[in-house]
C-alpha cells in the first residue's frame, strides 16, 4: 500500500530540515479558515486537513497557526495582517470563502506572499496574480464531470437543474449548462433556490411536469438533503446527480439510506469512499485524529499543506522560493497530482460517487482526470 505522499516526502527529505534547522524553531504556516459562521463545516474541514498535514510533516517541523476568519472579509484581512506581523511566512493557507480570498489576494500580492486556497471562486485565478494557488478543482472541472456522468453514464437527455441563488450556485449552474451544451443536451427546467427555501416540492414537481428525465442539483448541504428527501417522498423515481455537498458524509447522514438509492454526486475527491491506497490511509488517519469522516475539502487542504511542506523540504526558504517551487512542481498528492495551469489552478481531476440505498457510505463510481485539459 502506498504511503501518504506528504509523509514519504517529509521523511525522505528530513535531512533538509535537520541539516539546517536542527535547533531552529518550526516553520509557522498561518492557516486562515472560517471556523465559525455559515461556512463552519467547510472551515473546520480546512483546519483539520491543515493540522493533520502539519502533524505528518513530522517532528514538529511545521506548525499550523489556525486563525478563525468567521465569514467577514474584514476579519480575514485582520487575520492576514496579524499573520505577517512578526515577519513574512513562507506562504499562507487562505480561507475557503471566495469573498474573503478576493479581499486577501491584493494584500498577498503587495506583500509577495503565496496564498494557497481551496476556494472554488473562479475569479481568483483569473486576476493575473502570481501568488494564488488553488488546490480544489473549480467549477470548470467538477461541473464537466457532473454533466458528463449524467449524460454519458446515466443517459439523461432532458435534465432539470435546481441550483442555489448564491454566487456558488450561479457559478456552478453556468458551468453545468455550458458542459451540457457541449454534450448536446439542453435542460428542460431550471430553478434557483435561495438558501432559506424550506420546501422543494414545487421545484421538484415543476421539473417533473417539464418532462425531466433526471435531476441535477447544485445546492448547499442542507438543501441538497432536503431535495433528495422530498424527491423520494414525492416518488419522483428520477436519477439524481448532485453537487459536491452530497459527497459529504454529514449530508448523507441526514437521510435514510433508502432515500439515497441511485443518488450520485460530483466532488474533487471522496476520501471517505476510498477503500485502498493513500486515500484510505488519509481517511483512517483523519478518523483516528478527529473522530469524523473526512471530506474533499479536508483532503485538498491536506494536499496543499503537503505540497508546501515538500517545497520547504526541497530548500525553499521564503515566500519567493515557495512561489517559484510550487509553480514549477508536479506534486503527487493524495487526491490527485497537482500542477499549475499557469494561472494557479492546481487541481484538474474529479470523481463521481454514488450511494446504493443500503448504507450511508458512498462508493466511487467514476474518476475523471485532466478535465480542463491540463496534463
Amino acid at each position: 500500500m502506498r504511503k501518504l505522499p506528504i509523509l514519504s516526502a517529509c521523511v525522505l527529505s528530513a535531512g533538509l530540515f535537520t541539516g539546517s534547522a536542527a535547533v531552529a524553531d518550526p516553520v509557522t504556516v498561518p492557516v486562515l479558515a472560517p471556523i465559525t459562521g455559515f461556512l463552519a463545516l467547510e472551515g473546520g474541514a480546512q483546519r483539520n486537513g491543515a493540522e493533520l498535514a502539519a502533524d505528518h510533516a513530522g517532528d514538529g517541523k511545521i506548525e499550523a497557526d489556525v486563525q478563525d476568519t468567521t465569514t467577514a472579509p474584514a476579519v480575514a484581512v485582520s487575520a492576514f495582517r496579524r499573520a505577517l506581523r512578526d515577519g513574512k511566512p513562507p506562504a499562507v493557507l487562505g480561507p475557503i470563502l471566495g469573498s474573503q480570498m478576493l479581499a486577501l489576494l491584493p494584500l498577498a500580492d503587495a506583500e509577495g506572499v503565496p496564498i494557497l486556497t481551496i476556494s472554488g471562486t473562479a475569479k481568483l485565478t483569473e486576476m493575473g496574480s502570481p501568488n494564488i494557488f488553488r488546490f480544489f478543482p473549480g467549477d470548470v472541472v467538477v461541473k464537466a464531470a457532473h454533466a458528463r456522468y449524467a449524460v454519458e453514464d446515466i443517459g439523461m437527455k432532458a435534465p432539470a437543474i435546481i441550483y442555489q441563488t448564491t454566487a456558488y450556485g450561479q457559478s456552478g449552474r453556468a458551468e453545468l449548462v455550458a458542459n451540457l451544451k457541449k454534450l448536446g443536451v439542453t435542460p428542460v427546467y431550471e430553478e434557483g433556490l435561495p438558501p432559506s427555501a424550506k420546501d422543494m416540492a414545487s421545484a421538484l414537481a415543476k421539473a417533473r411536469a417539464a418532462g425531466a428525465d433526471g435531476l441535477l442539483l447544485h445546492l448547499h448541504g442542507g438543501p441538497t438533503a432536503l431535495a433528495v428527501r422530498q424527491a423520494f417522498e414525492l416518488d419522483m423515481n428520477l436519477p439524481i446527480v448532485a453537487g459536491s455537498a452530497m459527497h459529504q458524509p454529514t449530508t448523507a447522514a441526514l437521510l435514510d439510506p433508502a432515500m439515497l438509492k441511485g443518488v450520485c454526486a460530483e466532488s474533487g475527491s471522496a476520501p471517505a469512499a476510498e477503500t485502498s491506497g493513500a486515500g484510505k490511509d488519509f481517511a483512517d488517519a483523519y478518523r483516528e485524529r478527529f473522530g469524523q469522516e473526512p471530506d474533499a475539502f479536508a483532503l485538498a487542504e491536506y494536499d496543499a499543506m503537503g505540497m508546501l511542506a515538500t517545497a520547504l523540504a526541497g530548500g525553499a526558504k521564503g515566500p519567493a522560493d515557495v512561489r517559484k517551487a510550487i509553480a514549477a512542481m508536479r506534486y503527487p498528492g493524495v487526491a490527485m497530482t497537482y500542477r499549475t495551469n499557469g494561472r494557479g489552478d492546481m487541481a484538474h481531476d474529479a470523481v463521481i460517487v454514488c450511494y446504493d440505498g443500503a448504507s450511508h457510505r458512498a462508493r466511487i463510481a467514476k474518476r475523471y482526470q485532466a478535465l480542463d485539459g491540463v496534463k
Partner: protein
Amino acid sequence: MEALSLQLLFNGLALGAGYGLLALGFALALRSAGAINFAHGDVAVAAAYVAVAGGALGLGGPAAAGLALAAGALLGLSVAGLSWAPLRKRPIEATFIAAIAIGIVLQNALTASFGGAPQAPAQVAGGGFNAAGVFMTWQALIGLGVAAAAFITVWGVLAHSQIGRRMRAAAEDPEIAAAHGIPVLKLAILAFAAAGALAGLAGVLLAAQHYATPNAGADYILKAYIAATAAGWGRILPTAACAVAIALFETIGAALVSHAVAEALLYAGFVALLAFRPQGLGGEAQGKRA
C-alpha cells in the same frame, strides 16, 4: 395538479406549524414584557441542538422533543436574566443589542460544540403515508397537532385564567398593575420562559423537517418579526396566524412563480405594509413600537 396543490398546502401548513409556534413565543414576550427578543430564533435553534444531543445519548424522538422544550424554557429565562431584566429601564436599544449578543454567543457555542454541518434531531414519529396523492409524514402531522394545541392553550390562558389577566394588565400598564400588587417582573420572566419553551418546540419541529444549522436562527427571527409587525405589534394569536400565512405564501407562492420571486414578493409586501399601515393589519395592541 390537484394532488400537487394539496401537497403544497400540506407542506405549507407543516412549515407554518413551526413558524407559528416561533412567532407565538416572540409575540408573547413582546406583549407581556415589551421585549423584542432578537435571540428568540437562536433559542429555537439551540433547543433543537439539545434534542440532537439527546438523540445521540439514546433518547427517542418524544423525549428529545420534551428536552428541547425544557431547554427552550431555560434559555428563555437566561435571555430574560441576562439581556432584559438588568437593562429594562435603560433605552430599549440596550436590550436589543444584549439579545443580539446572546444570539451570537449561542450560534458560536453551537458551532464549537456540534460543528457547522446541518443536523436533524430524532423524529417524534418516523415515516409517513400517502393519501389521495399527498405524502404526509407522521412528524408533520404531529407538529400540526402540537402547534394547534399550543395556540389554543396560550389563547385559553391569556383570555380565561387569572394569570393571563394579570399578564395582560401588566403589559397594558406596568406601573398601575404593580400598584395593584401584580408581580410585574415575575410575570414578565414567566412569559420569557413560556416563549422559550414555544421556541424550543418550534426549533425541534423545524429542524426535524428542514434540518438545523447554528446560524438558522437569523432566518427564523426575521419571519417572526415580520409576522409580529404584520399582525399588529403585541397581538399574540394574530401574529401566529400571520406566521402560518407566511409559510403558506413561501410554499404556494414558490409553485406559482418561483422561490426567489416568492421571497422577493414577501419582503416587498412587508415594505408596502410598513409604508401604508405601519401599525399592522390589526393595529397595535400596546400602542407603542420599538
